[in-house]
């Protein structure tokens, strides 16, 4: 049952999870770091926070593009075709 989109999904999930864990750990262990301003006027808290939101969407788009293509090549009939109760 494992399709290519499943594997791809897990890889992307792993990437995102690592970013999220990084964010949570910095907050939990060394919150002062979040007050530093790597870019003038924007502190790490705001940058990383916005970054996580944008990254989620970027990875989702990437997934949509890649998984959509591989589905079309492999098969198109994986969905269950029944609605009746």
């Amino acid at each position, binding site marked *: 049952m494992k399709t290519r*989109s499943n594997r791809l999904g897990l890889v992307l999930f792993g990437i995102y999870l690592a970013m999220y864990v990084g964010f949570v750990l910095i907050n939990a262990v060394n919150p002062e770091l979040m*007050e530093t301003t790597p870019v003038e006027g*924007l502190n790490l808290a*705001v940058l990383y926070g916005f970054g996580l939101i944008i990254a989620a969407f970027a990875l*989702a788009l990437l997934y949509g593009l890649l998984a959509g293509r591989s589905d079309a090549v492999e098969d198109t009939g994986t969905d269950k075709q029944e609605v009746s109760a």
Partner: protein
Amino acid sequence: MIYEAATEAVILFFLFVGFTLGLSFWLGRKAKSTAGYFAAHGQIPWFINGIAFAGDYLSAASFLGICGMIAFYGYDGFLYSIGYLAGWTVALFVVAEPMKRLGKFTFADALDAKFNSKGVRITAGISTLAVSVFYLIPQMVGAGVLVEPLLGFDHWQGVLMVGAVVILIVVTGGMVSTTWVQFLKGALLVVFSAILTWMILDRGFEVKKGGEDGHVFARYTVPRSVLDGSRNPVAELNGRHVVVPEGPWVEFPQFVRLRNADSDRVTVWHVEGDDAATVVHLVEAQSITRRRGQKPLVNGQEKGEKKGEPELHPVGFVSRLPDGQKSTGPVGPRSFFRIFQESEIVLWRSKNVKLSENETTTVYYQQETPGSRVLSPGEHPRFQGIRRDDLMGRINFISLMLALFCGTASLPHILIRYYTVKDENSARKSTIVGIGCIGFFYVLTLYLGLGAMTSGALDLTSNNMAAPLLARSMNIWLFAAISAIAFTTVLGTVSALILASAGAVTHDLLRNFRSEPMSDEMTVRVAKIASVFVGAVAIVLGIVFRGMNVSYLVGWAFSVAASANLPALIMILFWRGVTRQGVVAAIIVGMVSSLTWIMLSADTYEKIYGIEDGGLTPFTQPGIVTIPLGFLTLVLVSLATRNSGKESKV
């Protein structure tokens, strides 16, 4: 605060809600079968479904709760935004497609696809019900909060109204109309939040000494000896006498009470200054004294009922801008943060002074805070542990972030939306649209919250009200539109939750206790009765839990969802060795342990039972303990029952 209805707001509000209801009736005519009632015949286009995801997910908690938390505590509220959105990656990358492949109407379908077991169905049904009801509480609280400033209703009237309208929607429409209502309000919520954000940027910042009612908060510098009453400089204090502390006030040396010589009105002031200094600053605070059987006192006067009569002053202002500026004019999305970072903002904190059994004074005092502090985590009392060297505080924080991350993909009312589209491909595409829409909104929450913080319109007694009040400080029509949208937001989310619960009751629970299968028509009828019942429960809970931050309550619902549902959901997808006993045990253990933890936590003791410094759990958020516990239970029980599981399947 005192709220009076504005006619134009009320008209716009009822037009909007009326239109939504009309749409719902019109669409609902077609939904007669079970497939139509629970899953909209699987015929919803993916783009519509994606926006409906946003409408479903961006509940009262997101809009009211997060904005309110940011408006009072800064960045900490935004942590919820981040967590709520991050959870969608679990939904998209891991859960979405298998869910669609395995199930038909409910979350239990997917779990049970492999086993076809009564036990799995029933426990999954119960956990759906538990999570949905828990999630309903903040929505109903949010509904009451919205109606208060808009229509001038009491909280309970608002809750009752939402309950009634939602039951009507669900009973007449089912999933088709619920989906379209969610689509509509999801789209409108994002558009109007963007407009509001643009207006915040356009308004910029301005240095003020009080809120929008024009009251200027006073500040006196006096010798320290004034505090114990040994000196009484009436003239310097503008005709006020120092009241020598007595009774419970002795324990609060940070406050001093002053009595007006001519009116006998007593006000509370916050003492600022080093212990060693010979002079101190007295900064005007605000107070509300709640007395059993009498009207409350605000700032030493009996609280009024109409606008213009005594009430707490609205707050939320900047006390200093960078480079000594007085006002900035329009700012850009980036310079907004730069300027904020270098400014000083007056936040308000509160302390309860218990005068007697029947009388408690809550003192709200100013706390000038650097913007850089506001824009970093740890300002909220529940998150302060991460700034101190407090291990439990840190674990609590990690626990919350874990629950938010795992919770989204375990919410039954979100999962059922995978059954309204036609195939896995559409499920995936609609999730991506959902993530885009929701992510954009969450970016805006930081602007909205900080905008509310500096709007001069905040109500000290209700942080849930920050976003609507921010809109009102801009423009009354915008306020009406935002409130109407937020109200339909509640309607949309509540109807989905009630549908999910009704689905669980009829499809997962009742069917298993009957010898013969129910007819299609009867299933729908039973589902409608179940909807009315769940709706009634929600109304009662919404009234009981008034006054808690709705986002915080949602955090709990996420903990329960993640602990009960996620282990079973994930393991079924990725491990062949799962047995039905393992699934049943994991759901029960996850659900019971997380619920028990919450009931015994210090927060519940304080906010619900009214016991301060109680609580039996080492920290308040259960996720970090109960989610792994669910996984562990599932694996252990599955291993123990592996053989018997195989036999019974044959």
